[in-house]
C-alpha cells in the first residue's frame, strides 16, 4: 500500500485536481491544516482496515477507494476526521489542531529536546489552551492547567502608579523588591507560585517579566520544576521557570491570520451595602451598646426608610452610582508569516483594550474610566546565510497606556468600600456635588472623583532586540554547533497626571451651602517612574551525535546579563555552565549540568558559586519484559533528578549590604547645637553590614514517571518532589540588643517544600467525534525546618515545624454569653457578652503573645484542574475547571467588620457596613450570630479585642471554579474556500464563569484587606478568526 502510494506519486503530481483517467476506484487527495498548509505523515485508513497510507511531504495521498468507502484521517495532535468517497474527484481534507498536544520535541531552557529524553519535571501547554481565555495577560490562562503551578487572582485590572518607584537621595537604598532582577513586572493581577516559589519568566531564552504577550503568538508555555531543568540559570536556578516560547516562522507561502474578538466584563462578588435605614438603625444599636446616646432620631429613621428627604437623608448605593454593570474589552490580532528555505519571517501585531468598571459622564470630553490600551508588535526574521550560518533577528515592541480616574482607582475603591449610603447625597438641589463635614473622607464626592476629576495615565514602553547566530561546525566535528545570542531591551514607565479636584457642598438645614473640601485645578504632572536597560549575551557550543545506539550531547555555555534600572549600578549575573547527556538506545538516560554562576553585588571574592544537578532516566517500556508482555503499554519511563540550586534574591534585603553604610538627613535624626539652635543633620548607621551575605540555596529532588498506554490514548505523569531550601535570608532570632544596631539579613532559614503532582490525559475519537479529558492534581506541603526563632515559652508558640506562612493568632470559640466569669483580659480590656471568646491558652488570665497559636488549616495545600472537550466536524467545546483545597482565608478586614474602615469616632457616621452586619450578636440572636456585638469602642474594634487576629475571622477558602469555557465552530473547508479563506472560525468563550466556594461572603481568591483590590471580572467574549 505504501509502495503504491509512492509509485503513484509521479503520476499524480500533475493530475491532482482532475479525475484520474485510468483507475476508476483510485482516489487521490491532499491533507492540509487550518492554515491551508499541507500535512505530511497523516495516516489514511480505508474503512476500518488496519492498514493505512501516509501522506507524502506535499500532503498528497492516493488510495484505492471506490465510491461509498469511508476514508479515515489520523495524525498526532490533529483531530481525526473521516470522508466518504463520493466519486473519484481529488479531495482536500483539512485536519484541525487538537486542543491538547504532545509533540515529539519539547521546549527546554535555551533549546528544545525530544520528549522521550527528558528526565526532569516539565509540563507544557500549547496555543489552543491559551487562546480560549479572553484576558489582558496570558497568565489568566494558566490556572488549573499546569500541575505544580498555583495561582491566586488578586485583582481584575492592572495596577497604577504615580510616584517614581524609587527616590534618589543621600544614602537611600534602592531595593529590588518582589520580582527579582526585573523589577517591573506587568503582572499585578496574579500571584503565581511553582512548587511554592515565585517562578522566573523566560521568554525565548531571555529573562523578561512580561505577561502581556498575545496568546496567539505563543507556541507553548512550559514550567520547569526540577533542579536539572533550571540549572543553566545557576545562581537563579532555585525558583523554577515559566518558559514562554513564541511562534517561529514556518516556510511556505504567506499565511495571514486575523482575529477579532470582543467581550463584556462583570465584577464578581461586590458586597451588598446596608440601606441607609438599616445602617442608621445598627449605628444607634452600636452606640447604645457603648452606653452612648443615639445619633439618629426616629424622624431620621422615617426619612431613611421612606426616602422622603433625599438631600438631608440620602440613601445612595455608591456601588450602583459610580460602577457600571458591564465593561467591554476588545482584542484584534494579526499574524503573518511565511518565507522560503533561505529567509523566513513572522510579524505579529496585536491590540488589546480593556475598559474599567467606572461610569463616565455622558458629556465628558475625554475618557475618565479605567482603561488598558496596548499595542504589541513582534517580528522575527531568520535567514539561512549559507549552509552553515543562520541568523535570526527578533524585534519586539510594546506600547501600553493605562488610565485611571483622576480621583485614583485605588483611592476611589477604598472610599467606595467605606462610605455609607447616608454619608452625603450625590448632588445637591442646585446641582453641586454633595459632601459632608462629618469626616475628611466625605469631603470629596465619590461621583466627582470618578467622573469629573480628570485622569491619570501610565505609559509603558518596551523595546527589545534579539539577535541569534547559529553556526554549524560540522566541518570541525560532526554534530557541533555554535550559538551566539545578543539581546538588548529597554523599558520605561512614566506617569501623566492630569487630575483635578472639585469642591463639594453641604446643604444646610437653612438652605445655605457650606463648601466642603477644596477645588484643585487640573494638574499636568509628568513623572518618570521606571527605566531599565537590560543586555544579555550568550555563547554556547552544542554537540549532539549518535554513535550506534549511543547518543551523546554536550553544551558549553557562557552568558552574562546586565540590568540597569533607574540610578542603580548595573546588576550583572554571569553563568559558565557545562552540560552533558548520554543515552543508550533510548532506554537509559543520564544527564548532568554544572554551573559556576555569580552576581556582582556580593562581597568581592564571594560572588561566584558552584551549582550542579544530575538526572537519570529509564525507559522501562522499551524493555522486553514490558514490550513483549504488555502490548497496551506504549511507554513507561522512570526519571529522577537531584541538584543544588541558588536563589539570588539579595537585592530584596539590601543593596551592596556587605559594606557598612550610613544615612542622614532624616528629620528624626537632627540635633540642635549652639545658642543659635542650629539644626545639624546627623549621620547614623544603617543596619549592620554582612560581608558573609550569600544567595539562598536549595537541594531539590524530583522523582517521576511518565506512562503512556493504549497507543498513547492515555497518558499519565506523576512526580514527587522534595525541595529543601536553605541559607534563606532571614534576621536571626537572637537579635541581642547589646549589638546596638539593626541586625542584617543572614543566610539562616531552612524550609522544606514537598509534594506530589499527578496528571492524566485521555483522548480518543469515536468516528468524527474527538474528545479529550485531562486532569491534574497537586499537593504542596511546606515546613519550617529551621528559622532561628527564640525558644518559645509554650509549645504552641513555636513556628518551627509548621508550614511556611502558617497563620498565627488567637483561638476563638464563639461569643461570650451574659454570665461569663473569670474572663481573661486583653490589653487591659475585659471582654463582655457579645465579644469574641478568645482562648487563654496558658491560663494566666491575660490574652497576649503567649496565647498565639497556629490557626487556620495546616494541612498541605491541594489544587487541581481539569479540562475536557470535544470536537465534532469543526464544532468544538472546551472547558477548564480549577479548584483548591485546604485553603484558609481571613475576613479580618474593614469590609467585613461593620463600621470599620474610616475610623471610630462614634459621634459621626464612620465607615460602611454590609449585609453581613445584620448577623451581629445581640442577646436575642446570640445563638446564630456571625459577628460580635456592634461597638465603636477602640478597645473592642479598631485595634482592639474583637478584631485581633483570631480564628474567628478565618474562613474556609476552598473553591472550585469553572474558569474558562469555549464553544467554537470552524466553517467547513469548502465554504471557507469559496469565501477565499483557508479557515474561518467563530467562537464564544468566557472566564470566571461559575464558582462554588466554601465561604460565600467575598470572592475566594481576592483578599479584601490587601488594599481594596479591583474586583475580579467575569468575562463573556465572542470573536471570529480568519486565515487567508
Amino acid at each position, binding site marked *: 500500500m505504501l509502495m503504491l502510494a509512492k509509485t503513484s506519486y509521479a503520476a499524480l503530481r500533475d493530475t491532482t485536481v482532475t479525475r484520474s483517467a485510468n483507475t476508476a476506484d483510485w482516489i487521490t487527495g491532499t491533507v492540509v491544516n487550518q492554515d491551508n498548509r499541507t500535512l505530511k505523515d497523516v495516516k489514511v485508513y480505508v474503512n476500518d482496515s488496519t492498514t493505512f497510507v501516509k501522506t507524502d511531504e506535499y500532503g498528497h495521498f492516493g488510495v484505492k477507494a471506490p465510491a461509498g468507502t469511508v476514508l479515515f484521517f489520523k495524525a498526532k495532535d490533529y483531530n481525526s476526521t473521516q470522508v466518504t468517497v463520493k466519486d473519484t474527484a481529488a479531495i482536500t481534507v483539512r485536519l484541525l489542531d487538537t486542543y491538547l498536544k504532545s509533540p515529539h520535541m519539547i521546549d527546554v531552557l535555551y533549546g528544545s529536546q525530544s520528549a522521550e529524553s527528558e528526565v526532569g519535571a516539565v509540563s507544557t501547554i500549547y496555543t489552543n489552551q491559551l487562546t480560549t481565555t479572553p484576558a489582558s495577560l496570558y497568565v489568566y490562562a494558566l490556572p488549573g492547567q499546569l500541575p505544580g503551578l498555583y495561582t491566586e487572582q488578586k485583582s481584575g485590572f492592572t495596577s497604577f502608579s504615580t510616584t517614581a518607584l524609587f527616590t534618589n537621595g543621600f544614602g537611600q537604598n534602592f531595593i529590588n523588591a518582589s520580582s527579582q532582577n526585573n523589577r517591573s513586572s506587568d503582572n499585578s493581577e496574579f500571584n503565581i507560585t511553582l512548587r511554592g516559589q515565585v517562578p522566573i519568566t523566560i521568554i525565548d531564552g531571555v529573562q523578561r517579566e512580561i505577561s502581556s504577550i498575545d496568546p496567539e503568538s505563543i507556541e507553548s508555555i512550559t514550567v520547569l520544576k526540577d533542579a536539572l531543568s533550571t540549572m543553566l540559570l545557576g545562581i537563579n536556578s532555585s525558583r523554577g521557570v515559566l518558559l514562554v516560547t513564541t511562534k517561529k516562522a514556518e516556510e511556505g507561502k504567506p499565511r495571514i491570520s486575523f482575529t477579532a474578538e470582543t467581550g463584556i466584563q462583570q465584577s464578581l462578588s461586590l458586597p451588598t451595602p446596608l440601606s441607609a435605614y438599616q445602617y442608621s438603625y445598627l449605628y444607634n444599636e452600636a452606640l447604645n451598646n457603648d452606653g452612648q446616646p443615639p445619633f439618629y432620631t426616629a424622624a431620621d429613621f422615617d426619612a431613611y426608610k421612606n426616602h422622603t428627604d433625599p438631600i438631608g437623608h440620602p440613601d445612595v448605593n455608591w456601588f450602583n452610582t459610580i460602577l457600571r454593570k458591564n465593561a467591554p474589552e476588545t482584542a484584534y490580532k494579526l499574524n503573518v508569516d511565511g518565507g522560503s528555505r533561505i529567509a523566513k519571517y513572522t510579524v505579529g501585531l496585536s491590540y488589546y483594550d480593556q475598559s474599567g468598571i467606572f461610569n463616565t459622564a455622558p458629556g465628558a470630553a475625554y475618557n475618565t474610566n479605567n482603561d488598558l490600551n496596548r499595542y504589541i508588535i513582534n517580528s522575527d526574521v531568520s535567514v539561512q546565510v549559507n549552509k552553515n550560518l543562520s541568523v535570526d533577528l527578533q524585534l519586539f515592541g510594546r506600547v501600553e497606556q493605562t488610565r485611571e480616574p483622576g480621583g485614583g482607582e485605588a483611592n476611589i475603591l477604598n472610599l467606595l468600600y467605606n462610605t455609607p449610603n447616608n454619608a452625603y447625597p450625590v448632588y445637591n438641589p442646585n446641582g453641586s456635588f454633595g459632601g459632608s463635614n462629618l469626616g475628611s473622607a466625605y469631603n470629596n464626592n465619590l461621583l466627582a472623583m470618578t467622573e469629573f476629576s480628570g485622569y491619570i495615565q501610565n505609559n509603558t514602553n518596551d523595546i527589545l532586540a534579539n539577535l541569534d547566530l547559529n553556526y554549524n561546525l560540522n566541518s570541525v566535528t560532526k554534530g557541533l554547533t555554535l550559538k551566539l545570542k545578543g539581546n538588548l531591551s529597554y523599558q520605561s514607565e512614566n506617569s501623566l497626571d492630569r487630575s483635578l479636584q472639585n469642591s463639594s457642598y453641604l446643604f444646610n438645614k437653612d438652605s445655605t451651602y457650606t463648601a466642603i473640601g477644596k477645588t484643585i485645578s487640573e494638574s499636568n504632572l509628568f513623572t518618570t517612574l521606571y527605566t531599565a536597560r537590560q543586555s544579555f549575551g550568550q555563547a554556547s557550543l552544542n554537540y549532539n551525535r549518535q554513535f550506534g545506539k549511543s547518543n551523546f550531547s554536550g553544551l558549553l555555555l557562557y552568558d552574562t546579563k546586565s540590568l540597569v534600572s533607574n540610578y542603580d*549600578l548595573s546588576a550583572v549575573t554571569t553563568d559558565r555552565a557545562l552540560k552533558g547527556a548520554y543515552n543508550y538506545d533510548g532506554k537509559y538516560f543520564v544527564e548532568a549540568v554544572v554551573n559556576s554562576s555569580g552576581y556582582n553585588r556580593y562581597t568581592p571574592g564571594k560572588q561566584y558559586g558552584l551549582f550542579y544537578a544530575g538526572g537519570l532516566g529509564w525507559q522501562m517500556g522499551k524493555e522486553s519484559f514490558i514490550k513483549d508482555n504488555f502490548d497496551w503499554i506504549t511507554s513507561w519511563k522512570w526519571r529522577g533528578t537531584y541538584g543544588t540550586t541558588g536563589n539570588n534574591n539579595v537585592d530584596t534585603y539590601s543593596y551592596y549590604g556587605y559594606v*557598612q553604610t550610613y544615612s542622614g538627613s532624616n528629620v528624626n535624626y537632627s540635633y540642635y547645637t549652639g545658642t543659635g539652635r542650629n539644626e545639624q543633620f546627623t549621620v547614623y548607621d544603617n543596619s549592620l553590614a554582612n560581608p558573609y551575605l550569600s544567595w539562598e540555596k536549595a537541594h531539590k529532588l524530583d522523582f517521576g514517571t511518565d506512562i503512556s498506554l493504549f497507543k498513547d490514548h492515555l497518558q499519565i505523569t506523576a512526580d514527587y518532589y522534595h525541595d529543601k531550601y536553605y541559607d534563606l535570608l532571614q534576621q536571626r532570632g537572637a537579635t541581642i*540588643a547589646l549589638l546596638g544596631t539593626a541586625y542584617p539579613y543572614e543566610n539562616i532559614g531552612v524550609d522544606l517544600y514537598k509534594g506530589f503532582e499527578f496528571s492524566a490525559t485521555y483522548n480518543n475519537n469515536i468516528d468524527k467525534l474527538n474528545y479529550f479529558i485531562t486532569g491534574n492534581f497537586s499537593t504542596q506541603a511546606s515546613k519550617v525546618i529551621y528559622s532561628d526563632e527564640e525558644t518559645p515559652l509554650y509549645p504552641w508558640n513555636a513556628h518551627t515545624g509548621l508550614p511556611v506562612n502558617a497563620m498565627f493568632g488567637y483561638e476563638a470559640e464563639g461569643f461570650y454569653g451574659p454570665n461569663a466569669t473569670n474572663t481573661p483580659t486583653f490589653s487591659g480590656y475585659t471582654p463582655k457578652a457579645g465579644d469574641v471568646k478568645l482562648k487563654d491558652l496558658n491560663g494566666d488570665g491575660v490574652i497576649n503573645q503567649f496565647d498565639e497559636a497556629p490557626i487556620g488549616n495546616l494541612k498541605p495545600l491541594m489544587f487541581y484542574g481539569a479540562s475536557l472537550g470535544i470536537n465534532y466536524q469543526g464544532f468544538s467545546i472546551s472547558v477548564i475547571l480549577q479548584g483548591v483545597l485546604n485553603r484558609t482565608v481571613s475576613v479580618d478586614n474593614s469590609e467585613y467588620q461593620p463600621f470599620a474602615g474610616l475610623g471610630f469616632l462614634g459621634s459621626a457616621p464612620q465607615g460602611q457596613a454590609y449585609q453581613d452586619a445584620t448577623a451581629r450578636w445581640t442577646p436575642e440572636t446570640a445563638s446564630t450570630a456571625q459577628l460580635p456585638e456592634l461597638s465603636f469602642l477602640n478597645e473592642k474594634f479598631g485595634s482592639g479585642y474583637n478584631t485581633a487576629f483570631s480564628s474567628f475571622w478565618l474562613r474556609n477558602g476552598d473553591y472550585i471554579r469553572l474558569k474558562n469555557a469555549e464553544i467554537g465552530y470552524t466553517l467547513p473547508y469548502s465554504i471557507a474556500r469559496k469565501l477565499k479563506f483557508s479557515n474561518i472560525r467563530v467562537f464564544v468563550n468566557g472566564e470566571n464563569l461559575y464558582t462554588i466556594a466554601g465561604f460565600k461572603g467575598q470572592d475566594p481568591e481576592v483578599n479584601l484587606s490587601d488594599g481594596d483590590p479591583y474586583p475580579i471580572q467575569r468575562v463573556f467574549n465572542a470573536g471570529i478568526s480568519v486565515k487567508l
Partner: protein
Amino acid sequence: MKNYKNKILIGIGLITLVAAAACRKSEKFPVDKVSGIYIFDPRDSAGTQALKYLLNVYSVVEIGHNRVGGDYLDAASDDAVSSSPGGQVTILATAGYTAIDLPANENVWSSTNSTNTANYWNGIRSATEFMAGIDVVPVKDFVAPNGKINGIGVSTRYIWRNEARLLRAYFYFELVKRFGGVPLLGDKVYNVNDNIALPRSSFADCISYIVSECDKAKDSLITAPLINPAQDNYRVTQGAAMALKAKVLLYAASPAFNNPSGGNSNPLTGYPSYSASRWQLAATAASQLMAIGNYSLDPNFKNIFLTQNDPEVIMVRTANGTNPSNNVESNNGPVGFGSAVAQGRTSPTQELVDSYPMSNGLPITDPNSGYDPNNPYNNRDGRFYATILYNGAPWLGTTLQTYEGGISKPNNGQTETLTSYYMCKFMGPQTTSNFQGHDEDWVIFRYAEIKLDFAEARNETDGPVDSVYQQLKDLRLRAGIAPGADNMYGLTVGMTKDQMRAVIQNERRIEMAFEEQRYFDIRRWGIASTVMNQPLMGMSITNSNGNLTYNLIQVLQPKFVAPKMNVYPIPYDEVLKNPAIGQAHQNPGWSF
C-alpha cells in the same frame, strides 16, 4: 574548509576586540552609598562628616520632658500622677510591669522609639564606633581668640573622642541605675559574626568602669565657662565628666546598692559587702567639681531651665527644633484657656506640695512656720511657686481656678488635673494671655545637684558638719528663703545625721522635682516601699461663693515591691536570646 577557519578566526578576533572595548572601568561600589570611609575621611580636615556622626551619638541622650508615654518620669514617683491615668507612668507607679512588658520608654535596654534608632546600646555602639574611627580624620585644632586650643591645649579630634567616651559612660550609667550590672562591651565594635552574647558584669565592675571612663575623659574635654557658647553650648565638658562621676559614686554608695545590713548579696544588683568609704568617694568627687569653681548657682531659679549657657548648668540635652517653643506649656499647662490650649498632663501630688517649707524655711508641720491650712499656698518656699501651679496662682495674666468646676478643672470628661495642681517647672512666666516661647533644653546636670550630692555624701561620712549645712543654706538663699535671725534659713541647729539625712532628702526632692531624680532617689534610698505603698493624695477645692474648702482626696494607690523593684527586670526577650545572661542572671525576684 580553510576558508571557514579563517572566517571563524576573524570572527573570534572581532568579538574579543569588541568585548575588550566594552570592558571599560565601571563603578564597583555605588558612590551614593555612604560608607565608613566617607564618615571618617582622612581628607576631611574640617571633620564635617565625623562631627555629624558625633552629633548622632549626642542625639541618643534623651529629653526628659514628657518622655515616658507623654508624662514626666516623676509622675511615676510620689511627686505627681499622670492626669491621664493608664499610661506608662501609671504602670510604673502601680508596679504593673513585668519583664515582658516593661513600659517602652523606660525599656532603655531593648525598645526602639520614634526619635532615636534604638536605645542606649545603640548609643554605646555609636560612641565606640566613633572612637574607633575618628583617629584617621585630620581635624585641625581650633585656636581660640585667647591663643588656647579649645581652652585646654589638645586637638579637637582628641576632644571629640573623649566626648564620645563620656557620652558612652553616661549611657552605661543610665542602664546601670535601672538594671544593675550590665555587660561591658569595652572598645570593641561588634560585627555580625562576633559573639555578642556577653554576660552581665557585676554592679561593682560597672561602677568602676564608668568612673574610670569619666576620669579618662575629664581632662580632655572643653571647660566651662565656654569660650564660644554660640557654637559649643551643647557639648559635654570637663564639668559633665566630674558631675557624672559624682552621681555614679553617690548612687553606688546608696543603701539600695550598698546595704549596711549586708542584705544585698547579688553582685549584679549591688555590692555584696558594705563599705562606708563609698560615701567618702562620692563626697570627694562632688567636692572636686565644686573646687574647680567653674559653676555657680543662678540667682534666678526659673532661668536655669529657660536660658542657654546658664552658669549653673553642667550638662544639657538640647531641645529639638530651631525655634523657641512652648511644648512644656502645651503638654502640661492648665486646661481651659482657649488662647493657650494645654493638656494638663501632670498633676503634682499633695505630698510634693506639703514638702515645700514656708518662706521662713520651716516645714509646714512646724507650729512656728505660720502655715495656714485655709490659705495653704501663702508664704511658701520660692521653689514652690516656680514648680507648682495652684488654685489662685497667677497664670496667663489671670489667676488660676482649679477648684471643682473652675476654668482649669471643669470636670467635663477631658483630661485635667486630678489634684488641683499643675506643674509649672520648666515653663516660662507666661504673664500674657498667649504662651510665650522659650528654650526648652533638658538639664541633665546642674550645680545645685552637685551641692546636694556633696551634702548627702558628706553627711553620711562625717555627719552634719558645717559644709553640709552650707550647701543647704546656699540653695535656700537662692530659693528666696529668709536667712532668719540665726542665719540658718529655717534649718535646725545641731541636727543628728539621721535628721540631717531627712532634711537633705527633702531638699533634693523640692529642688530637683520633675528632673528625673525622685523616681530613682526613692529607690536608692530604700524608701520607695514606704512612700509608694500608700495612697497618693490630691486636693479637692470647693468654692462656695468665694469661700474655698480644701479636702484631701486619694488620686492613686501606687504599689512597690521591695527590694525586687529597686531595679527593672532585664527584658524577657533579651534574657532568652542571650544565653550568657539567661534566667540565672535575671535580676532577683523577676521571672518574666
